[in-house]
């Protein structure tokens, strides 16, 4: 199993698409920072226009923490989409090139092979989120400096600089769990569909539907609490004045359960199916 995981990492490190994934993340970050640099001050003025009549604002609200928060919001769509494309490719490329057959011609267990794919996908997801977090903190503080954070979440919420940094770090950690869920789903879709293009399309539809369903009130408490799409926004809860830790823990644990379920389904399907390239 360990040797399978090592070989998966070796393959990923040698594939150009890994570099494309990293480049895509840095490009997204670059766009957010560039937009903030040129237009950020104007947007904040517009946002706080009414409040300026009643309150006095000191310091610069267009600071590193706000930029990190903007980058963090790429966890809604951009980052999971990139992850789903790259991670499903870990398996669909093996089907396309028929290397999955050559692997299975060696004395290798089907269970361990597919489990190693899931484990490496999760590790890759964590690495990508870590790179996103570290680079966004480093670049944002370097260019825009520290400062208090203003966030619009059911109203304008203000956080002191140190508190904001803590909340942003927690949000990245919680967001990583959401990213793992989407990555695991994409790999399971790859097991089912085998074909890269079909998997990309279905993954993108899954992500879009998941985001849309998040906003819908099902008028049923159980569905509203337990349906998977309602669990993918736990990282946003760190930007309420009072952090609802119990809700965040519950959502993350439930989402982890969904990830494990998706993984079990993928493993069972892969194990039962004949190997055809």
């Amino acid at each position, binding site marked *: 199993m360990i040797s399978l995981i090592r070989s998966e990492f*070796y*393959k990923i490190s040698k594939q150009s698409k890994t570099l494309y994934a990293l480049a895509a993340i840095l490009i997204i970050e670059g766009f957010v920072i560039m937009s903030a640099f040129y237009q950020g001050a104007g947007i904040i003025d517009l946002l706080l226009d009414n409040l300026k009549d009643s309150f006095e604002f000191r310091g610069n609200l267009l600071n590193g923490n706000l930029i990190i928060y903007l980058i963090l919001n790429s966890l809604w769509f951009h980052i999971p989409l990139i992850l789903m494309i790259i991670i499903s490719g870990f398996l669909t490329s093996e089907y396309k090139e028929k290397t999955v057959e050559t692997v299975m011609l060696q004395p*290798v267990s089907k269970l361990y*092979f597919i489990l190693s794919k899931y484990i490496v996908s999760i590790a890759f997801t964590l690495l990508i989120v870590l790179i996103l977090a570290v680079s966004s903190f480093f670049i944002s503080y370097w260019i825009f400096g520290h400062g208090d954070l203003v966030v619009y979440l059911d109203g304008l919420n203000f956080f002191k600089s140190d508190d904001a940094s803590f909340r942003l770090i927690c949000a990245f950690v919680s967001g990583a769990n959401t990213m793992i869920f989407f990555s695991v789903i994409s790999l399971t879709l790859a097991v089912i569909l085998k074909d890269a293009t079909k998997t990309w399309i279905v993954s993108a539809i899954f992500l879009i539907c998941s985001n849309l369903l998040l906003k819908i009130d099902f008028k049923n408490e159980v569905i509203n609490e337990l349906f998977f799409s309602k669990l993918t926004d736990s990282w946003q809860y760190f930007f309420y004045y009072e952090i609802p830790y119990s809700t965040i823990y519950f959502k993350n644990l439930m989402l982890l359960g969904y990830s494990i379920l998706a993984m079990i389904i993928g493993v069972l399907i892969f194990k039962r199916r004949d190997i*055809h390239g």
Partner: protein
Amino acid sequence: MILEARNICKSYGSLEVLKNVTIECHKGQIYGLIGANGAGKTTLFRILLGLIKQDSGSILIDSEGIKPIGGIVEKPALYGYLSAFGNLKVFAQIQGLNLTKELFHQSMQQVGLSPTRKDEIRNYSLGMKQRLGLAIALLNNPECIVLDEPFSGLDPMGIFALHELIKKLSNENQITVIISSHIVSELTDLCDTLYVLNNGEIIKSGSAVQLLKESVTTFKITGKNLELSEVLKSEDAIFLNKSVLVSPKRASISEILQKLIEEGMEVTTCIPQTDLKALFGREQV
């Protein structure tokens, strides 16, 4: 016996791909599985290699090695973005082998590839990929290897080189080799035993020499001034542009050749033509 597949059946929906197929293979021998496209050769090989499950029947491989059987199905499927070393490293690692420099050199030399090339194998020719695929199949020293259409797409030099390599593996390493092809000539001088698969059934099996002898009814003869030969005319030979097709009726082929020499003809080649209808036991081939 190193491998025994007994009464293998496989269907896809209502389509019966294999019907009670039984083959037996002994150590160090070369076996040929011949059949027209769609006869079920690749399905049988996939089952032997454990890629797909048979509906019924049993497979017994008498080997206590880590890897009892290795092989290549259709084209060698390798990681194009890795070098030969990278590919061997990945496939060695997943089966618990540490690919040392010595093992890499040994594996490459065994299949006649240069271990000095560092570029990605997507630049390799098909023949070189076949050889690298064979090197991967031979990792962990399987006692039996299965090669599905290994000569497909190779040039004559590549076919010759692969022939020699397979013979070497069989003679020197005592590896049992099972090869499939739909081209009879590729297997004639390579295999000890032939199985003929038609429409999912083994319709003939036995010594390759005997089976092919029974299936040869016509010979293609080339030489100078053959159109003047009375012997060939008496045998109702068909005169083509630069050769003659003769199906001996009154005399054997050796007698015909002897008479041609007596007539003063200069015979340059005499190539047996396998009657595919006779071999495959059906009208369409």
